């Protein structure tokens, strides 16, 4: 009996009127945990009952404590007929199970009903008394901390980062059980909510067990997802990164009281890993009732992509024995692991040594309902297969680990696409095993690692490259090779140096497919996938070039399958890394050079593209120092490029970029126009309208180049569902529709948030789904953060001294190169391999470049020209003009100083009211310091209506529901004693409607970390640099005056 759960029901308020006669309610409460139920007295005739109950005590196993939610039901007492349910509250008591988090849950919870929504609130107090359990063979894993945050949480230090943990549990979906035909929608929804709650609890417990087995004490980057497979069942799966975390500030390492995993295990010489509970779903309390299994009788694995940015750290030369040793150690540390994957996207300094590039794998599976309780691991096998593939891709890139790893699915009827992606990387072994490596070796290593550019260096041997690539010497340190373009799924490393600001880059793509059944359908999809991947990649590359940038971070490619189409949406944040070469432009080449007017048209297009690039460079403040190109040992011979150069149009719209499909396909940046489709393709490049002045957007945690956040944040979710009107859809119209949908959505966001200017939309997360034949649903969650332009310039100065010094040294070095070389090399080099790429593209992939099509939107040209509030624009210009000199070095070093800024920035609003709970998809809160993590929030809600029109139609229905979900998240956080949710994510928003029947249903799954934060202004940290901070309010005020 390891735990006692105590619950007290205090009061209710704003209850709905349940008795029409008296306009009042006779409410009472049922408190249920596991199979035990308690009831309060009936509080007669009141909408604000004061039950003030005794403490209801449940004596339970800690296993149950982890799995089961506390279920509170508010009912209206009725003497003559059955009691009417008012609504329910599910409370996840997990945060109470580890001593560092919350100690009590107490507060007002919205009473939620799946048919009526929120109906009043109830005040509840929950406590848990845990007893130490010395049984090492236990099934529970209380004490393991869970974090959604994909970096080491702010008030912890990573002692060891153990690695990948994963688990999945399967069950039958109550919605598809026979009983659903006779029970009410409410009962069915509640059964589903409860089941998912139970399954998540079980999943979390099992992951926890694995973490204990690895001697960790926490899971970071915990991502749990549901696959609603309809008839074939319900899968809840989770991945995460096991770590041993140490709380900062507390001098003595503070381990969980209930079980101190690492200590305990170390003490016993005989490490006896619990053999059960590891991969078994057998003991599952939920599982017993069901027999449904998900089996694969059909499976297609799709050839996958490895994106540019490659190479191995050319084991040796300067790094010498240390580097070799490092490699050895890392490898041995990682090879013990089945999957050397990390769900983290940001890392402790020094952790990430080199980054290879993006690796991804997809697989199309056919879901089938087969009752085979003895083989529960089909889904496990599916994922294992994909993970193996990822692992081998990483190996091919000379990397032994994958970071920024994530998995996702897209399901339509019985077809399911499983996707996994991550960034191949070489890691520092220091964090991967016990701290024995630390010491002199580590220090020496750090000396050798050039700050700010090390991660860009290719991790594999340049003489033995897995595919042709264009390499140059690093533009920062000039010692190591770097690729010309780098794609990653991680956040921009804190020590990376960038020039200018970043921006959100999206590739959008639709492909029609024939409706088909089963295998035929799956085959059709898997045939389409490589082409989609290819085109998505091409679009990304083109758009990146168009922005004048050379690296993508936070890349997330989502492929969604529908009845009659496939959708691809890739989002990433483009930046200009100083370590990588200056990207070339985009050159358009016509196929029919004889035609004069055609030539003219081409050159017109070319001019437009060049103008756009120039404009973008100005917009994002990309003004790299004029670096004369070195003669770098490019592995690719260049005679061909020379000949090509002759044909190019003076301005040297230079060109090299490669996309490398794992099969050696390549793409080049000469866009060849051989038909109208290709023309539209080029046009579509230009349709993306930059955000209005004063706005920036990115899908990473922070915006590269902006670091002076003020404290105002606004998290939001926006949903759009569009109906495709015309029946005769073509890929082109579909592409245009989809593109417009996304662009308009962004435009709406910019308009809505215009009062926050200057501001940045961070962590912009698009999700696409195809709920029905002609419906496209796009869901966006992001956070808008205001920032202060003036502050940046002033405050960075002191902080960047070091880096600017370094930069100046660099510049001196650079000056030694003869300037004459400059033009020549700049022009010639970028063309390397362009032609080759082109050829291989057409021959290997079989897709003519022409097929990449999205049509033109001329109106957006005009829009772009239109100014956002004229005044602001003027102001922005004057500011920019006034500060050109200071900005450059400042911007360059900005990520370094980001942390400092957060500490010192923000004339925080002192009058922040009680009860406000902030929500953000980021792992931090600008202008504030997170002092405590209270536990994970993981909630699943269903809302259904049979009176859609009365509730304001689909928009009214969903608007109210999402607002209610936010409210319930906030209430839970507040009850835990927190004032914010960080790393918030809406993982699922499944919306179904039937307007003819006046019905709609929506399922939403959200998660995040509940935290307590303290405004920095309240912390009153006074450091030596503070004088600057003191002038900040004045600066922000002064901005208006300019």
């Amino acid at each position, binding site marked *: 009996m390891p735990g006692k759960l105590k619950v007290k029901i205090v009061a209710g*308020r*704003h209850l709905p009127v349940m008795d029409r006669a008296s306009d009042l309610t006779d409410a009472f409460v049922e408190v249920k945990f596991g199979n035990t139920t308690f009831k309060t007295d009936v509080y007669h005739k009141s909408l604000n009952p004061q039950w003030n109950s005794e403490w209801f005590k449940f004596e339970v196993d800690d296993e149950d404590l982890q799995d089961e939610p506390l279920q509170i039901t508010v009912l209206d007492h009725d003497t003559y007929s059955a009691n009417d349910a008012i609504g329910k509250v599910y409370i996840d008591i997990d945060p109470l199970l580890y001593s560092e988090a919350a100690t009590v849950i107490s507060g*007002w919870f*919205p009473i939620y009903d799946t048919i009526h929504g*929120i109906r009043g*609130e109830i005040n509840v107090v929950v406590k848990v008394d845990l007893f130490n359990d010395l049984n090492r063979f236990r099934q529970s894993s209380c004490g393991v901390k869970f974090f959604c945050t994909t970096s080491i949480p702010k008030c912890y230090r990573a002692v060891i980062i153990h690695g990948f943990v994963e688990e999945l549990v399967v069950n039958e979906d109550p919605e598809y059980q026979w009983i659903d035909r006779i029970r009410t929608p409410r009962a069915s929804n509640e059964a589903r909510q409860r089941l998912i709650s139970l399954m998540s609890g079980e999943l979390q417990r099992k992951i926890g067990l694995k973490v204990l087995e690895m001697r960790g004490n926490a899971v970071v980057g915990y991502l749990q997802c549901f696959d609603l497979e309809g008839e074939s069942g319900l899968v809840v799966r989770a991945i995460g990164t096991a770590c041993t975390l140490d709380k900062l500030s507390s001098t003595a390492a503070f381990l969980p009281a209930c079980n101190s995993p690492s200590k305990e295990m170390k003490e016993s010489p005989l490490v006896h890993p619990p053999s059960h509970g590891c991969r078994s779903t057998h003991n599952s309390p939920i599982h017993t009732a069901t027999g449904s299994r998900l089996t694969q009788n059909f499976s297609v694995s799709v050839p996958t992509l490895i994106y540019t940015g490659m190479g191995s750290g050319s084991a040796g030369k300067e790094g010498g024995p240390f580097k070799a040793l490092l490699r050895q150690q890392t490898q041995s540390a990682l090879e013990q692991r089945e999957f050397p994957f990390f769900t983290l996207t940001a890392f402790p300094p020094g952790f990430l040594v080199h980054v290879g590039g993006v690796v991804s794998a997809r697989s199309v599976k056919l879901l089938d309902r087969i009752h085979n309780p003895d083989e529960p691991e089909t889904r496990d096998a599916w994922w294992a297969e994909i993970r193996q593939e990822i692992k081998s891709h990483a190996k091919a890139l000379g990397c032994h680990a994958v970071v920024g790893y994530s998995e996702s699915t897209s399901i339509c009827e019985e077809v399911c696409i499983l996707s996994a992606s991550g960034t191949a990387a070489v890691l520092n072994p220091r964090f991967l095993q016990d701290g024995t490596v630390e010491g002199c070796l580590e220090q020496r290593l750090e000396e050798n690692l050039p700050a700010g550019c090390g991660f860009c260096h290719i991790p594999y041997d340049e003489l033995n490259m897995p595919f042709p690539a264009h390499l140059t010497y690093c533009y920062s340190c000039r010692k190591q090779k770097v690729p010309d373009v780098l794609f990653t799924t991680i956040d921009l490393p804190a020590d990376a140096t960038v020039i200018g600001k970043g921006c959100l880059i999206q590739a959008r793509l639709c492909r029609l497919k024939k409706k088909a059944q089963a295998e035929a359908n799956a085959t059709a999809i898997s045939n389409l996938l490589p082409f989609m991947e290819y085109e998505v990649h091409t679009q990304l590359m083109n758009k990146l070039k168009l922005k004048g940038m050379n690296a993508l971070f936070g890349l997330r490619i989502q492929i969604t399958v529908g009845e009659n189409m496939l959708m691809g949406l890739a989002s990433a944040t483009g930046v200009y890394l100083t370590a990588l070469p200056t990207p070339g432009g985009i050159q358009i080449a016509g196929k029919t050079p004889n035609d004069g007017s055609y030539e003219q048209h081409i050159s017109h297009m070319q001019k437009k593209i060049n103008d756009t690039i120039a404009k973008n460079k100005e917009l994002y403040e990309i003004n790299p120092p004029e670096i004369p190109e070195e003669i770098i040992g490019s592995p690719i011979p260049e005679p061909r490029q020379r000949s090509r150069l002759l044909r190019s149009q003076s301005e040297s719209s230079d060109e090299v970029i490669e996309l490398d499909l794992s099969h050696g396909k390549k793409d080049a940046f000469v866009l060849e126009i051989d038909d109208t489709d290709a023309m539209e393709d080029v046009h579509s490049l230009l349709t993306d309208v930059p955000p*209005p002045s004063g706005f920036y957007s990115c899908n990473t945690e922070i915006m590269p180049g902006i670091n002076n956040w003020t404290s105002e944040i*606004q*998290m*939001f*979710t*926006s*949903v*759009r*569902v*569009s*109906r*495709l*009107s015309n029946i005769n859809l073509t890929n082109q119209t579909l592409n245009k*529709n989809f593109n*417009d*949908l996304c662009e*308009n959505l962004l*435009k*709406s*966001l*910019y*308009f*809505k948030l*215009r009062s926050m200017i200057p501001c940045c939309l961070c962590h912009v997360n698009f999700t696409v789904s195809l709920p029905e034949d002609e*419906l496209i*649903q796009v869901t966006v969650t992001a956070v808008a953060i205001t920032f202060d332009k003036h502050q940046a310039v002033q405050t960075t100065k002191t902080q960047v001294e070091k880096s600017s010094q370094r930069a100046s040294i660099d510049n001196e070095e650079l000056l030694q190169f003869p300037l004459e070389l400059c033009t020549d090399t700049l022009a010639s080099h970028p063309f390397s391999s362009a032609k080759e790429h082109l050829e291989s593209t057409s021959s290997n992939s079989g897709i003519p470049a022409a097929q990449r099509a999205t049509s033109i939107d001329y*109106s957006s040209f005009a*829009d772009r020209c*239109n*100014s*956002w*509030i*004229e005044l602001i624009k003027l102001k922005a210009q004057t500011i920019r003009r006034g500060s050109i000199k200071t900005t450059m070095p400042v911007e360059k070093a900005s990520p370094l100083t980001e942390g400092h800024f957060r500490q010192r920035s923000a004339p925080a609003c002192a009058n922040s*009211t009680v009860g*406000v*709970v*902030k*929500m953000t998809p980021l792992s931090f809160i600008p202008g504030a310091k997170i002092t405590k993590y209270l536990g994970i929030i993981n909630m699943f809600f269903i809302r259904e209506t049979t009176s859609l029109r009365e509730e*304001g139609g*689909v*928009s*009214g229905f*969903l*608007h*109210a529901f*999402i*607002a*209610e979900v*936010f*409210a319930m998240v*906030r*209430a839970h956080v507040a009850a835990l004693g927190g004032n914010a949710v960080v790393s918030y994510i809406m993982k699922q928003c499944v*919306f179904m409607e039937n307007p003819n029947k006046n019905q709609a249903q929506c399922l939403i799954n959200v998660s995040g970390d509940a935290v307590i934060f303290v405004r920095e202004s309240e912390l009153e940290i006074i450091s030596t640099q503070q004088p600057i901070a003191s002038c900040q309010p004045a600066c922000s005020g002064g901005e208006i005056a300019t």
Partner: protein
Amino acid sequence: MTNELDIFVGNTTLIDEDVYRLWLDGYSVSDAVGLRVRSGILEQTGATAGVLQSDTMDHYRTFHMLERLLHTPPKLLHQLVFQIPPSRQALLIERYYAFDEAFVREVLGKKLSKGTKKDLDNISAKTGVTLKSCRRQFDNFKRVFKVVEEMRGSLAGNIQQHFLLSDRLARDYAAVVFFANNRFETGKKKLQYLTFGDLAFCAELMIQNWTPGAVADSQLDDMDVDLDKEFLQDLKELKVLVADKDLLDLHKSLVCTALRGKLSVFAEMEANFKNLSRGLVNIASKLTHTKDVRDLFVDLVEKFIEPCRSDRWPLNDVRLFLNQYSASVHSLDGFRHQTLWDRYMVTLRSCLLRMYHD
């Protein structure tokens, strides 16, 4: 391609003040979009009409959801669904309960009944306030009236407590409730020149001095909505001031002596004194009849303001006269109702001065 569903939900509920005003003013979404377009917002922001339409719809939906809460403002403060900063909450409430001068002048003193509600389309046509807005304002009056009608304690205080209005607006509502309850006639043509401000000013003074709550010792029966019946009854006693000829003459001579040389309209005053005095005293003595209470403002204008105005009394002379007129009564030895006279005259004097304009 049409958007079937289009929503934006912020963790902090976004409130656009301009759109809120349009919504309060009762414009439909399409009208509101039209008005916003004309305001030049598209040029300022570079947005498209589609964006504006979607934005307006979204705000309207939010306001529609908030409206239920705005009916009982304390609920807006305690609800959990919409996270709104306190300053914004105050703004939402204040604006929702704000009313149009033109509208309130039409409704002031009328019974807040279904009958009046049916007249709203006429009022809307007459005042140019949209019917929707008229309905909101009327329902606000009625809702506030219903809640505070039977309550003890300060009227404005009760309104402020239950509707979380600003001090100023709560006092205006107190006037509306007071007028509605006592059904003072304000619609007559000769009263049209009076603004809501004038009438609210008078109402406030009457609430302060003429209701049971005004008397310190009647705490138990502290009602601000009705006039003090006992006081109205007592006012009959003042009749002696005009009925007793000696007293009237004495009063006149006291006033004339004091004001000689100080008024530009002395002769007119001297000639009119008895008429004016009779008017004021008779108004007091008739207030026991409900009908006469309702006509209070009509009587004040007919019996005092119009005669003065026709003789072109400057405001300052009216002030000097009324001051002297009230004060001189204290020197009338035969008159015993000094406190009663003061309770009546202090209020009346201020009301008349406020009402004395063109």
